[in-house]
């Protein structure tokens, strides 16, 4: 991967990738694995980007797909991941974000199903229902209802933890 490509086409969207990778991992090692894998896949798939959507949408889609695939791979083959090889680190002891409320929110998001995580991340990133549906490949009519349900679930999960 050339530095140019990374600097111009990935780095400006690193925030998106990080937000998604954080939602699918529980520790720093896995997070870095996911981040690197997403970057690599973006680079590898760059020729398939036809400009039919925004580059950021493409990055969202790829990040979600890669993260969900890795999560599945991890279930099938635990030794694939650093955290399974390296000494165990208590997940509770890791504070990822300086903002405590954001940390709690992420913890709650991680308790959602893989697809629900994708939906809420895109919603929080202010993607329209239409865009969310396009990225995930589902019917936009169902997204609104799904978002509402997820938000209710998150509220319950966060009950008393944030102010």
């Amino acid at each position: 991967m050339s530095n140019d490509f990374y600097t111009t086409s990935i780095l400006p969207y690193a925030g998106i990738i990080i937000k998604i990778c954080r939602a699918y991992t529980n520790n720093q090692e896995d997070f870095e694995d996911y981040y690197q894998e997403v970057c690599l896949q973006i680079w590898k798939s760059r020729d398939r980007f036809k400009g039919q959507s925004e580059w950021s949408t493409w990055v969202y889609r790829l990040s979600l797909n890669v993260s969900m695939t890795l999560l599945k791979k991890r279930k099938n083959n635990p030794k694939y991941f650093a955290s399974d090889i390296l000494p165990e680190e208590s997940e509770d002891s890791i504070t990822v974000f300086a903002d405590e409320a954001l940390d709690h929110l992420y913890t709650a998001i991680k308790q959602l199903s893989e697809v629900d995580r994708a939906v809420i991340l895109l919603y929080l990133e202010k993607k329209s229902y239409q865009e969310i549906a396009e990225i995930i490949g589902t019917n936009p009519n169902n997204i609104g209802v799904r978002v509402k349900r997820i938000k209710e679930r998150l509220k319950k999960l966060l009950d008393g933890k944030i102010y």
Partner: protein
Amino acid sequence: MVRSIETIWKEGFVKSDTIVVPKLNDLYNKKSMHIVDKFTRMFKINLVAIVIGSFVITAMSVLVHIPYMGLVFFFLLNTLAFINYKLMNGLYTIDKNVNSYLYLKTFDSWMKQMILLNQRFSRLLYPLAFLSVVIGFWFGGIGGDIPGEELVQVLLVKFPDMELLFGLPLYPLLIVILVTGLLAYFADVIYTLDFNIVYGRVYHKLDDIIADMEELQN
């Protein structure tokens, strides 16, 4: 007042230290380890299968009264397993304390060496395996009449003009020689096909990773 999740999200990421971009390093370390481990596992299983197969074939050959075939197969398969077992020891000496690219390249060299040696051995293995089948059927069980000689007698009654060479029917003998020669000649191709069936996916994956890494370096 309880903040909404939208607010938490927005405000949380405003803090500058929230997003720290990981460095892109050691990209392939775990992938490399993973692919080598996978191959080693497959290789070991294959060796065990060859040894077990040699016993099964020998036992079966005794049961169907062609023990000579079984004995040759036993010898050939165990020699094959022994050679590869020795080769596998080389796999354990690959230094893991080097960068991923060097690690994979060393592994790739080991693979190429292993393929080369097996291709050479196949030039003996396939023809000998074929000959062992022919010899097995020719001599039949240990002791008693020799089925091959009985067959020649039957053929001579039916075809009295049949040409013989050292007491063997000429044309079938030529066919056996031809097939043996062809097996020796195409041993490399047959071995490569065999190798691809068993290890093809892993080997091509290795090629892909090395190609990716080389592209990354450029």
